[in-house]
C-alpha cells in the first residue's frame, strides 16, 4: 500500500509560553521550541505499522518553510521512506482551502492508496483532511482511532465519538483518514535514527512544480483570514496563591477543607 502522511511543524505548546507580539500580528516566534504536530506523529506511526503488515511505502509531506525539513527528517527516522517539502512564497497565508489545494496537487503527483492527516493541528481547525478528501472526491473519516486492512480495496476503521464511544465503519480505498491520538504508541526517535537519514535527499516542490494556479492559494485565494492575535479573557480569572511551597500547601489545605475537598 502506498501511503501519504501530511505532517506539520508546530510550536510545542507544552514546552512554550505562547505570547502575542506587540503588534498583535502574530505570536512571538523567536525562541519557540518546535516539533511535529502531535496528531501527525500518531498518523506516521500508524502508516508504518500498516506497511509493516501489508507492504508498501510511506511518504511524508509538509507545507512550510525550510525549517519543516527537520520535521520530515524526524518522521523519516521513525520509518517513513520518503519526504516531500512543499515550499513556496505563494503558499504563505493560505487558508484551509488553500492548504488542501496544495496537498491535492501533491497527491495527484503520486499514486497513493491511503492519505493520512492528523485530526487537528495548532490551528485547532480540524479541517485539512476533510477538505482534501472532498477535493479529491474520495471517501473520508475523521478522528480515526483504529485501522484494519481487510483487503486491497477495503479498510475497517474506528472513529472516536463523544464519551469515548467508537463508531465502526468500512471504507473503500483510496481514501483519506484523519488520525486521533491514542491510536497507537508512536516509537521513540533517537539521535542515531535522525543521523541515519541526515543525508537523504528531500525534494522541494513549489506552485509551478505542482501546476497550481497561485490565485487559488495564499492570501489571494483565502476566503477566511486571520487579522490579529490577542490574549483571550474567558472568565474572571483565578485568585493566585503566592508564597513558598510550605505557605502554598498550608493555604491549599485550608481551602480544600473549607470546600469539602478532603474526606
Amino acid at each position, binding site marked *: 500500500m502506498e501511503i501519504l502522511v501530511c505532517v506539520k511543524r508546530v510550536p510545542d505548546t507544552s514546552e512554550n*509560553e505562547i505570547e502575542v507580539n506587540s503588534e498583535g500580528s502574530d505570536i512571538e516566534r523567536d525562541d519557540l521550541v518546535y516539533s511535529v504536530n502531535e496528531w501527525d506523529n500518531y498518523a506516521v506511526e500508524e502508516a508504518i505499522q500498516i506497511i509493516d503488515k501489508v507492504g508498501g511505502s510511506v511518504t511524508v509531506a509538509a507545507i512550510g518553510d525550510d525549517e519543516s525539513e527537520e520535521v520530515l527528517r524526524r518522521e523519516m527516522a521513525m520509518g517513513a521512506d520518503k519526504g516531500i517539502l512543499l515550499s513556496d512564497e505563494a503558499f504563505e497565508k493560505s487558508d484551509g482551502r488553500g492548504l488542501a489545494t496544495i496537498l491535492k496537487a501533491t497527491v495527484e503527483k503520486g499514486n497513493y492508496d491511503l492519505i493520512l492527516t492528523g485530526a487537528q493541528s495548532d490551528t485547532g481547525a480540524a*479541517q485539512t*483532511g476533510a477538505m482534501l478528501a472532498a477535493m479529491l472526491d474520495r471517501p473520508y*473519516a475523521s478522528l480515526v482511532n483504529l485501522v484494519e486492512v481487510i483487503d486491497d480495496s477495503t479498510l475497517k476503521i474506528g472513529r472516536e*465519538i463523544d*464519551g*469515548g464511544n467508537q463508531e465502526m465503519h468500512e471504507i473503500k480505498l483510496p481514501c483519506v483518514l484523519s488520525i486521533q491520538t491514542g491510536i497507537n504508541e508512536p516509537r521513540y526517535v533517537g539521535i542515531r535514527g535522525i543521523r541515519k537519514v541526515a543525508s537523504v535527499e528531500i525534494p522541494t516542490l513549489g506552485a509551478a512544480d505542482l501546476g497550481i494556479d497561485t490565485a487559488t492559494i495564499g492570501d489571494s485565494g483565502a*476566503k477566511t483570514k486571520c487579522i490579529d492575535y490577542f490574549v483571550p479573557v474567558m472568565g474572571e480569572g483565578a485568585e493566585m496563591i503566592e508564597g513558598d511551597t510550605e505557605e502554598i500547601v498550608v493555604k491549599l489545605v485550608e*481551602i480544600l477543607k473549607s470546600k469539602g475537598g478532603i*474526606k
Partner: protein
Amino acid sequence: MQIFAYIINKNGKADDTALELALAAKKLDSEAQVTAIVAGSGIDSVCQEVSAAYNDVWKIDHAALAYPDSEIMGKILPKLLPEKAVLLLAHEYLAMDMAPGLAIRMNSAYIADVTDIEGLDGSVAKLVRQEFSGMVSTHNTCDLSDGAVITIRPGVFATEETPAVGGSVVDKSGDIVIPETQRKYLETVEAEVGDVDISNSEVLVSVGRGIEEEDNIEIIKELAEAMGVDYSCSRPIVDAKWMEKSRQVGTSGKTVKPKVYMALGISGAFQHLGGIKGSPFIIAINKNPKAPIFQVADIGVEGDILEIIPELTEKVNELKG
C-alpha cells in the same frame, strides 16, 4: 441573508447546541431568516422541539439517515441548500467529519470552532476563534459572499431562554436522493467501563501531561488517597496508557460534575473543560502562568506539581493525623 443550522439529534431529542446555533445565527445577522435542518429517521418530535426557535424547520426523514452519515449529508446538502447559503453547525464529532468537505462541495468559505461573533461588515463576518490549544485568540474575517460553512464551539452561546420565533416544519424528505456511499457504518462500540465511575465523584484530583513521566503518576494516587477522593486525568495520560480510559475527563471521555476539581498540570483545552459540568470549585496548579486553565479556575498556583503535590499529600496526612 439566509442562514441554516444543522441540528444534531439523538433518540428523538435535539442536542443542546440546537438553541445555541439559533442564537449564533441572530448574532451573525439579526435580520436573517434562520432555518433549522433536521435529518434522521423518525424525527417529528425533534422538528417540533426546535421549531420554537427557528423561522422554519426542514425535515429530512429517511431510513438511510438513522445513522447521521456525513458522506450522505455531505452530498445531499449542497444540492438542497440555495446558492450562497450560510450553514452553521456545532463544532463536534459530526461536524469534524462533515463540515469542511461540505464547504468544498458548496464552493463556499469555511471557518471552524468559532467562539464569538463580532458582527458583519457588508458580506464579511468578523469572527473570533482560538489557536495553540486556547493560549491565544484571533480575529478572523470570513467572506460570506459565496456562502459559508461555520462551526460554532458548543457552549459559547449557551442560553436559558428560547428565542421565540415559532416556525413551521417543511418536509423536504422527498427532495433528496440518497447517493451511493464508499463508507459504510457498521456499529457503535460503547466505551469500556472502569473500576470507578468518576462521573459520580464529588471531588476529583485530576492530572495532565505536566506529570511528565509514568512513574510520577504515583504521587497523584497518593494525594487522592490522602484526601479520600478519586483521581482522574486529561487525554494525553490515557493516550500514553498511564491511566485507563474510564478516568479521562472531557468530551471524548467522561462528563464529571464534582464539587471540587483539582487540575494538576492540565492546560485547560476546551475538549477537557467540556467534560466538567456543574461549575465546580476549580483549583489549578500549573507552571505556566498563561495556561488557559487559570481563566476558569477559582484558585491558581503557579508552580511545579512534582514539587507541590508530595508536600500537599504530607500536609493532608498530617491534618488527618
